[in-house]
């Protein structure tokens, strides 16, 4: 039993941290903010020079062969610096890259992997649709064989497509399949293809997500990823994605630290805020929650690094961390009071504490118990895989 990272891992953390501390400047973040963007292609390019686009891929595919623990550290440090490339990195390199390696044809691998590694192309995951949230097998985006192509018609929602040039679209190729899970297929689609249209969908937290419309989009058969009608099962395989959620806890810890700093220097009705017993009690709960989150997360990470199953543990981590983040946002706003209502813009800027971090967190954390599997689905997974309870009718 040992709860520490080893010296090589600490060394790797330092290297990654130094890089992002240097590269993610406040100017960079402000420029993006002014443009209303959240991805920096310039920073993303810089990862090419480091050879970090493809960290987790095996060496024979041009990667660095990093293990789960090294990847976790990498994500943590990207997150700590709030590097504006994290989503695109995860989707392009971790998701699409791993899918290509596991499922792609030699041709697909030769075409896409080097381009991904050079940062020339990016690709988002395209599973969810308006009709397929928790019930992913209900995907309705239709793909019909048409000569050397598949013809796509339908829609995807909540996509990262505004920041990428490709999408791995999960489509319905067999509308009569029983069960419906057996009729889905993945395609790699160039978002420049004729017939693709996009509309931004803004989240409450200010993330630009996309509604992607497919209107007779012709996708070459060579872009079918994996096997025909096996798309659902391919989507369910996590392909050794890092699942500890640690990158989120890093941020929570940072926000909590900021809240403490605020409490230390603020007064309420003349009394130092930090002396109000109820406030102290609530902060004690939060810091305990963060400690617990770390342990569950690290346990998940360790299991994964040992090749053990992590279905239950990853679901627990996701559930705990996302709910903790909402708890933090709510308590922080209660604690800060009316000042926490002021967004960091216009005249409000003069008053807003912590650059409006908490109104933003409150808005943004609403997403965390929904995206990537709702809390209800996580509880379902814990109940099924962890506690071996019988299925509810319809689930």
């Amino acid at each position, binding site marked *: *039993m*040992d*709860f*520490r*990272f*080893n010296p090589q*891992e600490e060394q790797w953390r330092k290297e990654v941290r130094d890089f992002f501390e240097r590269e993610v400047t406040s100017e960079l973040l402000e420029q993006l903010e002014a443009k209303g963007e959240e991805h920096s292609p310039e920073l993303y390019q810089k990862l090419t020079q480091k050879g970090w686009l493809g960290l987790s891929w095996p060496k024979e595919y041009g990667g660095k062969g990093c293990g789960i*623990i090294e990847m976790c550290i990498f994500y943590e440090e990207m997150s700590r610096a709030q590097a504006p490339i994290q989503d695109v990195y995860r989707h392009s390199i971790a998701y699409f890259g791993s899918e290509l390696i596991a499922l792609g044809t030699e041709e697909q691998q030769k075409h896409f992997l080097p381009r991904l590694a050079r940062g020339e192309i990016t690709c988002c995951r395209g599973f969810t649709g308006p009709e397929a949230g928790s019930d992913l097998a209900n995907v309705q985006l239709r793909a019909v064989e048409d000569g050397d192509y598949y013809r796509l018609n339908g829609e995807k929602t909540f996509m990262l497509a505004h920041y990428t040039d490709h999408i791995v679209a999960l489509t319905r190729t067999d509308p009569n399949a029983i069960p419906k899970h057996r009729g889905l297929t993945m395609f790699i689609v160039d978002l420049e293809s004729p017939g693709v249209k996009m509309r931004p969908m803004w989240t409450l937290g200010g993330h630009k997500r996309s509604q992607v419309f497919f209107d007779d989009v012709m996708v070459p058969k060579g872009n079918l990823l994996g096997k025909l009608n096996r798309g659902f099962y391919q989507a369910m395989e996590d392909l050794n994605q890092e699942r500890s959620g640690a990158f989120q806890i890093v941020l929570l810890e940072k926000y909590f630290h900021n809240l*403490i700093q605020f*409490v*230390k220097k603020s007064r309420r009705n003349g009394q130092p*805020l*930090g002396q109000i*017993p109820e406030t*102290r*009690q609530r*902060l*004690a*709960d939060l*810091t*305990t929650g963060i*400690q*617990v*989150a770390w*342990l*569950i997360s*690290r*346990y998940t*990470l*360790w*299991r994964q*690094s*040992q090749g053990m199953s992590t279905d*239950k*543990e990853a679901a*627990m981590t996701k*559930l*705990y961390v996302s709910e903790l983040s909402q708890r933090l946002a709510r308590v922080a706003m209660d604690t800060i009071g009316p000042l926490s209502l002021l967004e960091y813009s216009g005249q409000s800027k003069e008053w807003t504490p912590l650059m409006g971090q908490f109104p933003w967190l409150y808005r943004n954390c609403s997403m965390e118990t929904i995206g990537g599997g709702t809390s*209800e689905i*996580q*509880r*379902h997974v*814990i*109940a099924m895989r*962890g*506690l*071996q*309870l*019988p*299925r*509810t*009718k319809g*689930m």
Partner: protein
Amino acid sequence: MDYQFSQEQEMFRKSVHDFLQKECPPAVVRDVVEKGKDYPWELYRKMAELGWLQLLIPENYGGMGGNWVDVAIFYEEAGRVLLPSPHFTSAILGAEAILALGNEEQKNRYLPQIASGDLFLTLALSEVGATSDLKTVTTSAIAQNNSYIINGTKLFIQDGEYADWFITAAKLGPPDTGITLFIINKNSIGLRCIPLNSLLFSGLKLSQVNYEGVNVTMENILGDIGKGESITEVVDRARIATCAEMVGGAERALEMTIEHTKQRQQFDVSISSFQALQHRMADMALAIEGTRWLIYYVAWLQSQGISCAMERTMAQLQTGETYEKVAAEATQMHGGVGIMREHDMTLHYSRAKATKVILGYPEDIRETIAQSLDI
């Protein structure tokens, strides 16, 4: 990073588990908890033979030189079966107090006998108005001819009725001040121990101890005169055992709930297929998982000699909330049968609350954590 127990630790767990399954079935627990019978001393003697009273005692004092991770493993298993035993008060609290504060002679006198199970020690610290802050103790110790005269009343003394010795906190009379600890024999003239009736089915054996002019010689002072508050650190360290016991109890309560809901049929289906129950069981499992790792993290830090006052307090907060919540939910999901005295769920329901209260006031625990936030 290694979240795995060592082979020795796994073997230790297995031997504790197997032993308790065999020697401590629900009937044994019920004899003590329900019928108010004596602790099963035969079981205690067997544990002594197995060396399990020596988990914290170094080899040079007749022990095995285990560490806090071993203690946590032992207590997690003990909590699962609700082991009725004065093990905690004597072999953990008492032993740790002597080990941390005692002089060489005291260590040699008490530790080997604690290890062999021939002697019981308990702490007599709290009073009716002084349960969490030793400074408020009113029991007095007045110096007189090379000895001290103790007067006062102690309350909530765990396993007091079995103790041979009471480690008693008393306030020195003028001119000295401060709290001092005295090791006082049960047969001292003027000392009387009276058992109290505690929360039904909790298995907790609390006593009142009266001191009326009890004479204690200098050699029975534990630690430095006037520095008796250092015992709170000992109690705090020892509580990781209570936490582990509680999480073991929570694990068992969840298992019983899963078994019950799977087997129970209503509306022609097993009620375990209802999401209204499944999601709550998932929450129970999550609370247990996080709590368990927090406890082992603290146990590991303690065994490494790494300071962990804050983490330890967090473990107390987290464990109290978890066992209480899990036991209440488990009881609810058992429906009518779960609140019948003949059902073992009632034991967990009471035990959870009792151990939580013993851990300390939740407000105090949170306040202690807040203090380390330095706000």
